[in-house]
């Protein structure tokens, strides 16, 4: 770890992020946006289904990242809120609710449930909180089977809704993709804003150190309840999106395994990161598909191997890849690794964090000070 005790000359004038990095990010963002708008127009319904699924799970992951990535509270119950949102939406479709009402309730009801759970559970710490969230899908699945008047029991609910308006000339898969993409975009923008300012700082300090949070006027309890409520609302919203894309929900939607896979995808993408959330969704949807194409009977095994490989190479998730590459490049050039001193070419090669010096220092064994 490079430790600075005195002002480094290069640090005084550099802005937080270099202009080059910003420009690169802007270009990349624009390219992604263009692809996301154009791709469904030229792709098969199957591809569009996968693209729309990425949007669905991106929002589920976004919620998980709020409570777990940003606020540091382990949640193993996100699938329960996804399932609840999907069932509420299905109920709305079958009872001819306006779509706006389904959309609203698919987020508000899970938010209320999540808030109640958090009000009771957020006083608990660490594993205890995780265990309570774990109970949600475990209780939720039999409940979904039992209350078949609402859920359709084990068969689930098949719905047929959200058809493309004829005037648009879009196929249903294209229309549904655009609907969920817009919802995802709005959700991502809101959360991105939220985690940047005052509320985001309160999330981060609750994750880092509750004693400091308390001393700065942040109630860890209230903060956790807020974060869990937001996570549940987004989980429910992703359930609405799920039903839009899949047109079917059953107790399978909320199984515990989905929660675990979401946690894995969050870590793979990069926790406490908006871009990482999107990358996590890509991983969540695409890796099983690609693994299935490699060998359909070994899907889980291949997915697991990819998970391990990514975690070994990039413990901070896919989102850390550019930083890792930049670090490697600067390490090879022999400059220091801190982002602010790229101009500091004169620095010694031995001061990089953790990397071995290129030339071993002369051994000092002859001047050993110890008696």
């Amino acid at each position, binding site marked *: *770890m*490079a*430790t*600075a*005790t005195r*002002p*480094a000359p290069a*640090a*005084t004038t*550099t*802005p*937080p992020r270099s202009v080059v990095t910003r420009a690169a990010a802007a270009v990349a963002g624009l390219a992604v946006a263009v692809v996301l708008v154009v791709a469904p127009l030229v792709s098969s319904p199957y591809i569009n289904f996968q693209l729309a699924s990425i949007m669905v799970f991106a929002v589920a992951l976004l919620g998980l990242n709020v409570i777990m990535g940003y606020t540091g509270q382990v949640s193993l119950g996100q699938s329960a809120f996804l399932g609840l949102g999907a069932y509420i939406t299905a109920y709305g479709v079958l009872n001819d609710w306006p779509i706006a009402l389904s959309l609203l309730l698919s987020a508000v009801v899970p938010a209320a449930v999540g808030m109640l759970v958090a009000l009771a559970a957020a006083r608990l710490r660490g594993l205890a909180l995780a265990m309570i969230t774990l109970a949600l899908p475990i209780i939720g699945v039999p409940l979904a089977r039992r209350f078949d008047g609402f859920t359709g029991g084990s068969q689930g609910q098949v719905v047929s809704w959200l058809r493309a308006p004829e005037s648009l000339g879009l196929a249903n898969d294209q229309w549904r993709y655009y609907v969920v993409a817009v919802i995802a975009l709005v959700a991502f923008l*809101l*959360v991105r*804003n*939220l985690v*940047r*300012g*005052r*509320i*985001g*700082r*309160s999330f*981060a*300090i609750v994750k*880092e*150190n509750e*004693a*400091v*949070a*308390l*001393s*700065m*006027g*942040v*109630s*860890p309890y209230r903060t956790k309840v*807020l974060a869990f409520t*937001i996570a549940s609302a987004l989980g429910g919203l992703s359930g609405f999106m799920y039903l839009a894309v899949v047109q079917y929900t059953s107790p399978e939607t909320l199984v515990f395994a989905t929660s675990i896979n979401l946690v894995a995808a969050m870590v793979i993408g990069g926790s406490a990161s908006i871009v990482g959330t999107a990358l996590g969704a890509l991983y969540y949807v695409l890796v099983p598909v690609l693994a299935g194409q490699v060998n359909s009977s070994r899907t889980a095994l291949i997915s697991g191997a990819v998970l391990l490989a990514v975690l070994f190479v990039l413990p901070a998730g896919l989102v850390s890849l550019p930083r890792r590459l930049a670090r490697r490049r600067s390490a090879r050039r022999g400059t220091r690794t*801190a982002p*602010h001193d790229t101009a500091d070419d004169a620095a010694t090669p031995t001061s990089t964090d953790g990397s071995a010096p290129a030339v071993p220092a002369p051994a000092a064994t002859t001047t050993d000070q110890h008696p």
Partner: protein
Amino acid sequence: MTAPPAPDAMLSVRGVSLRFGGITVLDDVSFDAPRGGILGLVGPNGAGKTSLFNCISGHYQPAAGSILVDGTETVRTPAWRMARLGLARTFQHPALRLDATVLENVLLGAHSWLPGGPVAWALRLPTTRRHEREARARALELVERTGLGWAAHTRADELSHGLHKGVELCRALLARPKLLLLDEPAAGLSHAEVEQLIGTVRAVRQEFDLTVVVVEHHMGLISALTDRVVVLDHGAKLMEGTAAQAQSDPRVVEAYLGKEVGAGEPA
């Protein structure tokens, strides 16, 4: 038995006792911190100084006693409400977000007075953004006047321990406290850094009309800064007086020698 709180005290501690299991950590401690003054709190390791801070800041719940901050009884006030009552503190072991910049760390200090809830933030309302900009400007100002301006956009994990202490001080000052508790602010600092710290504390006390309570083993700092010191030993108040009186008091000398000589204590 215990004296009534002094009317001009920013902080009045009366008969505070704290126990963990069967162990008495604080035993009937009483003292006042006069408004606008700098009070030293000294004593050997394990005397209970940090625990006393934790009682004042609401992190610990005393078994008995009363604590008044600017005339308000706060013993039952949750710790997170203390910031709004004008209390800020630093920690003996600086606790920063190492993955965040100095500025981001300091900005947390604005939490208690910065307006805007989750909805306002999610929507990035213009007023919310304006308040954030103001907080940022203020944070930068503090960071610059404590000599950390060059590091404002540097990640905390690239800085030394001594600089972390400075960041913590800025974070506490950004909360606009009336009463500031500093827990061993000079521990691990170089001589030059201690000199700078003394200057900073003096200046901000004057400018922000602060009352300061400082726990410190560095007798140079205590002598230079404090008007009075309270000496704790084994959880009880041993004596109270000027820094010079404390240093020449045989009981204080014995309390320190009974353990180890105070200066250069391990964390």
